[in-house]
């Protein structure tokens, strides 16, 4: 036994020296939840960390300024012109771009990439197909004019920035046609290959991806723009905030991306660690199902909005990870409203409930994802609702399970987080304030539909805003829409998400943009 202890002691002394490691000089080591990546194909990627991957490994047709989203500038498309009727867009392709494979990027690759999105028809395809592109018409609507020119013809004269913002999203990424088609099998346009492989021209190229484990990127020496400062980026999937914090404090990683509020507080005093934050587009809200006999009453909906402890949650369980926000457009979007008319006001809520004879309260359920901070938020909401006599039963469930119920409209209340799909305000207006068909068998399932909120009038207003050409006027229309929505909708919009990143003090130049597809690694030094 004594011998055993001795051996253990020796072993420990011996291993101790290996724990004193620092990350290599030319490598950025990052802990980040990447288990949402299910594909590396830009025509399919639709998740936060997947979007960040494409942003750093592919070039998109158009980019926006991360500090001023209204400024759009060319990426692969050097410049563009719009026809007077607003239906035809002509893009000039930037010369001299080569893919990591060595192939030259031309108009052909651009046309191929866009057509591919439509033909594969994966989850994000609607971002392009909402302009009327279909497999039948793409040969006429997405056209190569010459090696440096591409023409797009859309179905309606939308606000001109609508298409441009849609092209700044992941589906606007240009893939290497020769490389992709070399791996085509059974007419899949290389889909089964590109799902786990890479064919782009961005500042970094893929070295390896082990799903839910690691994602490793290497510098692309052929990149046409600002070449990456660090040779390699290693992203390790780590779920627990406390583990990320430990690794960061020990210097085993350079950046921790998913620290929880309490761990952020915990590292705040550490001189070796600095913290940066940036508001992101995701919004936290409650969806009140209008099929529920209590929730359909306007007074009850209104009462809910007064029964949320916005400030309390912001300061405690969310602590810097979100800010109070009560309209459907997140800050940073055209026409976003920053008005916050609601605060916790139990007396007012009680009065509202009394108007409809519910002063004794009632019981409702809330489907809640079993993760943080959703669970803590649900508990806090449960506590404040109880003050007005409303008994909230939390039904915890795994994400896809709650979502299945939500989409079947069998929930009472759903606590959700909604992220915009592209930087144009229509992305959120489309889902929160538009419901063209409220029948159970409807084809489109926007959030308004999921909560069975029938709004023919508001749908018209939303459509009108999309067609408005004058940007100032359009912003005004969205402002009004949000103001009305805030008061009448069955959505209790509570917070806008803030991304907080903790890094070692020597890490500089990491670009945190307003969306995950505008977080850039290439300027990072250490």
């Amino acid at each position, binding site marked *: 036994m004594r011998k055993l202890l001795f051996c253990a002691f020796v072993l420990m002394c011996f291993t101790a020296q290996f724990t004193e490691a620092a990350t290599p000089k030319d490598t950025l080591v990052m802990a980040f939840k990447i288990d949402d990546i299910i594909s590396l194909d830009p025509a399919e990627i639709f998740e936060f960390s997947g979007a960040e991957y494409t942003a750093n490994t592919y070039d998109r047709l158009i980019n926006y300024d991360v500090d001023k989203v209204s400024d759009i500038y060319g990426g692969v498309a050097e410049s563009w012109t719009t026809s007077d009727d607003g239906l035809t867009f002509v893009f000039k392709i930037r010369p001299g771009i080569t893919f990591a494979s060595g192939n030259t990027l031309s108009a052909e690759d651009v046309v191929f990439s866009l057509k591919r999105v439509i033909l594969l028809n994966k989850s994000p395809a609607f971002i392009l197909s909402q302009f009327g592109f279909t497999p039948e018409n793409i040969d006429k609507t997405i056209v190569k004019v010459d090696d440096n020119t591409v023409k797009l013809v859309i179905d309606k004269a939308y606000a001109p920035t609508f298409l441009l913002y849609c092209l700044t999203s992941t589906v606007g990424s240009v893939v290497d046609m020769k490389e992709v088609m070399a791996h085509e099998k059974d007419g899949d346009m290389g889909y089964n290959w590109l799902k786990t492989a890479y064919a782009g021209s961005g500042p970094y190229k893929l070295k390896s991806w082990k799903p839910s484990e690691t994602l490793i990127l290497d510098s692309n020496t052929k990149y046409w723009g600002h070449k990456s400062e660090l040779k390699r980026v290693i992203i390790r999937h780590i779920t627990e905030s406390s583990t990320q914090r430990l690794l960061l404090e020990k210097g085993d990683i350079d950046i921790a991306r998913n620290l929880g509020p309490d761990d952020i507080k915990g590292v705040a005093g550490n001189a070796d660690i600095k913290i940066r934050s940036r508001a992101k587009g995701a919004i936290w809200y409650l969806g009140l199902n209008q099929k529920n006999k209590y929730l359909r009453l306007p007074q009850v909906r209104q009462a809910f909005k007064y029964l949320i402890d916005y400030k*309390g949650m912001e300061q405690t*369980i969310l602590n810097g990870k979100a800010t109070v926000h009560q309209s459907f457009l997140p800050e940073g979007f055209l026409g976003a409203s920053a008005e916050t008319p609601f605060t916790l006001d139990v007396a007012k809520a009680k009065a509202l409930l009394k108007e409809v004879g519910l002063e004794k309260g009632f019981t409702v359920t809330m489907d809640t994802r079993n993760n943080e901070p959703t669970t803590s938020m649900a508990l806090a909401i449960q506590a404040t609702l109880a003050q007005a006599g409303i008994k909230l039963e939390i039904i915890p469930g795994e994400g896809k399970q709650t979502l299945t119920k939500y989409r079947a409209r069998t929930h009472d209340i759903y606590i959700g987080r909604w992220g915009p799909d592209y930087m144009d305000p229509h992305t959120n207006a489309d889902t929160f304030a538009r419901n063209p068909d409220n029948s159970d068998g409807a084809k489109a399932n926007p959030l308004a539909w999921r909560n069975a909120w029938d709004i023919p009038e508001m749908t018209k207003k939303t459509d009108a805003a999309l067609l408005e050409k004058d940007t100032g006027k359009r912003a005004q229309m969205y402002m009004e829409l949000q103001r009305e929505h805030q008061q009448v909708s069955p959505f209790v919009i509570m917070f806008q998400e803030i991304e907080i990143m903790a890094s070692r003090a020597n890490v500089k130049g990491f670009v945190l943009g307003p969306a995950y597809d505008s977080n850039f690694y290439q300027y990072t030094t250490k």
Partner: protein
Amino acid sequence: MSSTRRWQHWLLSDSPASPFQAAAGRTYLGLAEFLKNRLAVFGLLIIAALILIAFFAPYIAPCDPLVTNLVNRLQPLSAAHYFGTDEVGRDIFSRIVWGSRLTLYVIGLVAIIAAPVGIIIGTVSGYFGGLIDTILMRITDIFLAFPKLILALAFVAALGPGIENAVIAIAITSWPPYARIARGETITIRNGDFIKAIRLQGAGPIRIITGHIMPLCISSLIVRITLDMAGIILTAAGLGFLGLGAQPPSPEWGAMTSTGRAYIIDHWWLITMPGTAIFVVSLAFNLLGDGLREVLDPKSDN
């Protein structure tokens, strides 16, 4: 002779006058043997305490286990909160006290579901033998072919997370050993003379199994179930820890440990308290099980 002495004499009599006296004597000897095992008694006391705590939870717990108080979150141990408060300001001591009900609920329900299933399958299989035996034992083997926790995980995945589903999943995975034991006992009993006698009196198989075989299997099953209790508690806690057992806000100890994990660096009490509770209770069941085994099954020497 004092009255205690007299009782002892009556109990230990070499020639008991009635079957009752004989039974009482045996029980007394077993009890005396059991009481000599101080650790087992200790285990029994802890379990008794657990049951009392669970029963009187509303009187013992100073706070409501579910009421959140965001201002008071993550408070260290103090006179107001013996075990501190958790991430939404709930009193951990109260949660552990109420959690004892969930623990009892889980083990109780598993025992109520798994034991009868095991005993029925085992006795039927052992009594009839032949094809029925082969089929039933095959099914038992199929369930035994899976590691317990993994099969429970798969079931929970199918049924959805939740404490009831965790109980069902654990029960589904714990009956096979009981069936095996019951079958073994049945095979040794079924050809006994007294069973033959009953059969000659015209009793049907159902009566023989339920009336005469099952009661005889029960004592060995009880030992086995007691020994399994610790394992059941640990499995339930493990499921809770993985987020597949009891769901928030219910004060299940494994789930509490799981939540506490996020605060492990600065707020040690969030994970230490429920973890200790799990440990103490499963230790108690192990001690008790060991003690019972020594008394009821003197062959094994542990």
